[in-house]
C-alpha cells in the first residue's frame, strides 16, 4: 500500500512538471514536445503499464483493506469516536474514491483518445493534447470540477505521504518532523500546482 502509494506520488510530480509546461507562453511547443516524448519513447511506454499496475494494485489493496477494517468492528459504537486523530486519515477511502472518479474522467479525455477507445473530439487531431487541454480548460465548469478534484487529492496526499513512511517503518526522531512537513508541502504543491493550469486558462488565456 505504502510502496505503491509513494510510487504514484513520485509520478504525480513528473506529471505536474509536464502540465506546468502548458503555462509557457509558447503556443504549446514545449508541452507538445514533452507529451509526444511521453507518447513515443519506448521506456516510457513500458513504464505506462507499470504505472497502471501501480494504480490498480493501490486501489485494489486499498479497497480490500478498508473492507476488512470495517469488518473488524461488526457492532459499532453509539457515540462516534472523539479521539484526537490525523484528520484526513479517516476519509482515505472516500477521498480515494473521488480521485478514482476523476481518473476515469481524465482517461476519457486523454489516454483513451490516444489508444482509440474514445472518439477524437471534432476538429482536433488524435495526438494534439495541447489543443485538447485548452478545449477542456477554457470550459469554466470543467476547470472548476478539475480544481475541486485536486483539492480532494490534496486531502488524500496530506495524510498519505507521512502515512506511507510510517507504514514502511521509515521513521526516525531526527526526521519525523521533516516528513510531516514534506507531506504538507507536497500536498499543497500538487493541489496548487495542478490547479494553476485551469486557473491560468480561465482567467489569463
Amino acid at each position, binding site marked *: 500500500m505504502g510502496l505503491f502509494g509513494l510510487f504514484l506520488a513520485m509520478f504525480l510530480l513528473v506529471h505536474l512538471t509536464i502540465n506546468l509546461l502548458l503555462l509557457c507562453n509558447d503556443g504549446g511547443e514545449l508541452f507538445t514536445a514533452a507529451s509526444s516524448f511521453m507518447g513515443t519513447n519506448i521506456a516510457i511506454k513500458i513504464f505506462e503499464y507499470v504505472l497502471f499496475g501501480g494504480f490498480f494494485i493501490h486501489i485494489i489493496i486499498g479497497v480490500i*483493506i478498508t473492507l*476488512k*477494517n*470495517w*469488518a*473488524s*468492528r*461488526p*457492532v*459499532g*459504537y*453509539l*457515540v*462516534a*469516536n*472523539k*479521539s*484526537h*486523530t*490525523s484528520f484526513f*486519515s*479517516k476519509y*482515505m477511502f472516500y477521498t480515494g474514491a473521488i480521485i478514482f472518479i476523476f481518473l476515469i474522467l481524465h482517461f476519457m479525455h486523454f489516454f483513451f483518445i490516444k489508444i482509440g477507445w474514445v472518439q477524437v473530439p471534432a476538429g482536433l487531431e488524435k495526438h494534439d493534447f495541447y489543443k485538447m487541454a485548452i478545449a477542456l480548460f477554457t470550459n469554466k465548469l470543467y476547470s472548476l470540477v478539475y480544481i475541486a478534484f485536486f483539492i480532494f487529492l490534496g486531502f488524500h496526499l496530506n*495524510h498519505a505521504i*507521512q*502515512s506511507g513512511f*510510517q*507504514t*514502511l*517503518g*521509515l*521513521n526516525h*526522531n531526527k526526521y*519525523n518532523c521533516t516528513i510531516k512537513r514534506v507531506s504538507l508541502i507536497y500536498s499543497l504543491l500538487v493541489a496548487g500546482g495542478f490547479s494553476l493550469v485551469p486557473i491560468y486558462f480561465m482567467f489569463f488565456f
Partner: protein
Amino acid sequence: MDLTLKIWRQKNSSSKGKFETYKVNDVSPDSSFFEMLDTLNQQIIEKGNDPVAFDHDCREGICGTCSLYINGRPHGPKRGITTCQLHMRSFKNGDTIVVEPWRAKPFPLVKDLIVDRSALDLIIQAGGYVSVNTGGIPDANAIPIPKMNADLAMDAASCIGCGACVASCANASAMLFVGAKVSQLALLPQGKIEAANRVQKMVAEMDRLGFGNCSNTYACEAECPKEIKVTNIARMNRQFMKAKVCAEKHEAASFGG
C-alpha cells in the same frame, strides 16, 4: 452532582443487548468513576435487579483490567489515564454519560460492559517473550545496553494490555499493543536473538484473530493510558519487513523450546 447514565446492558454473549438509562444523584466530584458506578449498582441491587457488570481489578492504573468507552473515548475524556483513574470532576453536573463496552470483532462480549480480551494474550503467546534457559543469572553489567534503548524499551514495556488502542481505532487494529510488545524486547540485546521470528509470529497471530489493519490514524496514541508512541508501530513495521525479506526460512518455525 446529578447525572444521567446510558449504559449498554447485555445478559450474555448470545443475547441481544440494549442501552438502559439510569439516574444517579448526589455524586461527589471527588469520587472516582468506579465509585460512582458502585453507587449505581448499590441502587440497582436494592431494587432487586441485576447490577451492571464491568471489569476492574487494581483500581490504580497498573493492571489493565478496566475498560469502558465513555462518551466516545476509551478510558474517558482525560489523556494518559485508565478508567479507574478517572474522577467525576471531569464531568459537569447534569451531564449525560454514555458508557459502552469496547467494540472489536476479536473482543467478544461477555456481559454488559465486560469483553473478553484474551486475543491480546494469544498474540503474546505467539512470540511476545524471550526464551530463557535455566541456570545462573549473568551479571547485569556484562551486557552493555545504551541508555536510550533501555528507556525506549521501558516506555514500550509500560503497556498494560488494556486494549484501549483497539477500542479507539477506526479499524479495530491492535498495532499499538503489538508494536509495544515487539519493541520492548527487540530493543534489548536479549530480545534481539529471536526478533525476526517473533515479529512475524505475533503479526500473523494478530491477523488471524481478525484485528483490523493500521491506517495511521493515531487515535491509539491519543487514547493509550500509558501514552505508548506510534513510533513503536513503525519499528514493528520496519522489523517485519526486514524479517520477511532477510530472515531465513525455518523448517519448524517454532522457537522457545
